């Protein structure tokens, strides 16, 4: 076990404390912080850091070129594959595009997104009970 110290603004700590007391009860702050750290590590630590870095760079590149792609009839409404900061391929069929991209460039962190005004979203609504 390690012990660490962090400095955060008073207002943030007070608000966090209030929320933990309301949601979990007293003396639960440490457990909540531990859960947050575990969750962060699980979400980010299962991928090698170089994969995450490259993927995030390709994602940022797509965001940078989004407006330009949207203004081009060729890309609008279609899926685009981004690798090395440029759009390397596009298709109306996402699966066909992904298969082609992996075949041509290997199994690399290629970012694929739809050239659309709206962001993609999904709902995973079902709450679950965990009995201890």
């Amino acid at each position, binding site marked *: 076990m390690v012990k660490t110290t962090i400095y955060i603004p008073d207002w943030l700590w007070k608000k966090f404390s209030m929320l933990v007391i309301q949601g979990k009860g007293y003396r639960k702050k440490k457990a909540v912080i531990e859960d947050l750290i575990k*969750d962060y590590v*699980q*979400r980010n630590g*299962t*991928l090698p850091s170089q*994969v*995450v870095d490259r*993927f995030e760079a390709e*994602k940022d590149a797509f965001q940078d070129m989004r407006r330009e792609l949207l203004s081009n009839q060729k890309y609008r409404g279609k899926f685009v594959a981004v690798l090395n900061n440029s759009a390397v391929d596009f298709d109306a069929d*996402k*699966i066909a595009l*992904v*298969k082609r991209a*992996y075949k041509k460039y290997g*199994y*690399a*962190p*290629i*970012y*694929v*997104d739809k050239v659309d005004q709206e*962001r*993609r*979203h*999904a*709902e*995973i*609504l*079902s*709450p679950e009970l965990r009995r201890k």
Partner: protein
Amino acid sequence: MVEVKGSNPYLRGSEKARVKLDTGAGMSVIPQDWVERLRLMPLGVIDVSGFDGEWREVRTFMVDLAFSGFRFDWVEVIASRRDDVLIGRHILNHLKVTLDGKSLALNIEDP
């Protein structure tokens, strides 16, 4: 109990887990551990909201999924801290699922 087999569509290797059919989920969800074990590459991102209405951006991955004699290749999924696999509507909409709650029976078929 129904089991689902998940595999990387590009590389070898597979994992198994319990399956839950979730008509409230727009997308399927795999255990976070599978990302590392199956060496899945992130492919995209999607904003996901839970029952509390909070939205957050998560990464998506492609997997092959097989359960109850059905096979779905190149399925886009998200990953989360869980031991089972949630099969969402993007897969269920290809099947006919009949729930007989009174008999505690569930029938899945591909008509």
